């Protein structure tokens, strides 16, 4: 089987599983909702203040929620030794990785789509800058989180207390990406600065770490 065929089969299997169980998306949604509510009444900002802090709040909420989904990525494959079966099969390791990363990207993107109206409502957000730029920021930022997240979730499978290990590995490496997302979002919302530098930074981060993940994933998959 070719790389694309395996990727497609794995991706559709994951999407179908998620569509029927809705495990990841429900827990993510509820978690993100809690974060939005708690932040909203602990800061209670007016429209001007919320423009300054919303970038940080939104992305912290999405980051925490994404970890919930990322932790379930591989746990599903441990049951019935699916991962071991995959390891001995001739299917390329990278197609499994790409399928998982794309699946997570879709889950987190759906979450973002559903949560954004809530954020706008709770924080009375109105963008003063070019708001269409939020779309590339969200796309690149989400990919930055899920590509490394999927990789480190596979890595933390091999550790004790793996649910705690994932954020410990993922957050330090994600600092430049988070900085890029937060600053780009704030720049767009306040309309004072250009977000271009941060979008370029996010794109560089995505390219560098996507290549690194693809080169190293097979090692991590085979490490028992």
């Amino acid at each position, binding site marked *: 089987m070719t790389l694309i065929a395996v990727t497609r089969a794995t991706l559709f299997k994951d999407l179908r599983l998620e569509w029927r169980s809705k495990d990841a998306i429900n827990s993510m949604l509820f978690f993100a909702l809690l974060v939005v509510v708690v932040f909203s009444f602990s800061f209670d900002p007016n429209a001007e203040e919320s423009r300054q802090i919303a970038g940080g709040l939104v992305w912290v909420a999405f980051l925490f929620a994404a970890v919930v989904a990322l932790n379930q990525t591989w746990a599903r494959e441990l049951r019935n030794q699916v991962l071991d079966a995959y390891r001995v099969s001739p299917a390329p390791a990278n197609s499994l990785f790409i399928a998982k990363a794309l699946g997570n990207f879709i889950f987190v993107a759906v979450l973002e789509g559903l949560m954004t109206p809530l954020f706008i409502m709770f924080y009375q957000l109105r963008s003063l800058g070019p708001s269409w730029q939020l779309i590339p920021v969200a796309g690149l930022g989400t990919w930055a989180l899920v590509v490394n997240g999927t990789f480190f979730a596979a890595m933390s499978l091999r550790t004790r207390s793996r649910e705690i290990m994932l954020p410990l*590995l993922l957050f330090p490496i994600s600092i430049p990406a988070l900085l890029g997302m937060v600053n780009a979002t704030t720049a767009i919302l306040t309309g004072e600065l250009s977000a271009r530098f941060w979008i370029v930074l996010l794109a560089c981060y995505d390219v560098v770490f996507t290549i690194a993940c693809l080169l190293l994933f097979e090692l*991590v998959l085979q490490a028992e």
Partner: protein
Amino acid sequence: MKRVFPILVVLVSAFLGYAAYQALVVAPTEQTMGNVQRIFYYHVSSAWTAFLLFTINFVASVIYLIRRNPAADAVALVSAEVGVVFCTVVLVTGPLWARPVWGIWWTWDVRLTSTLVLWLIYLSYLMLRRFSTSSQTPVLAAALAVFGALDVPLVYFSIWIFRTQHPQPVIGAGGSIDPRMMHVLLINWLAFLCLAALLCWARYHLERMRREIEETEALEALLEPRGSR
């Protein structure tokens, strides 16, 4: 090891004492900052030592990924551990100096932030090694070390566009430093390097011994007849 180690400890301690004397007494007092500036000799020496150790860790990790040489993995582990210690010294001495001179403990300046992120990455590296249940922990750790090395330049450039508050390098690049201060700094760096080398060497031996014991125990467990336990 048993005989040489105490001698080396005495030698390195004496050297560190001499370096401290140089830094605290011999080195001229800085005009504007006064005696506070003397922490510079420890701050910069630790920083250079830590960065050197993290570079060694990265090189050893890459060598391990290519050659699968267990010694390279032990070197990577040891250099990361000792590097974190020296990086902690940098992060503690920095704010101690910054408070009287800048008036603030901390600022999100490019050098400070990069050092902090580096420290966080290597803490997570040590955590991974500690919590791993895999028989191939070295592979996982080496992969993480590569990710960390890719991350640092990105961190640096992402904060670089803000105006940087850290004093510009006084060594090279058009900076000026009193030659006597430079002399003291180099003595201190050398002393710190000796200390780091000693720590790494001792830790490396410990790690090799620990692995040998583990292997022997595993072998004995295999050789033991089934019913005896």
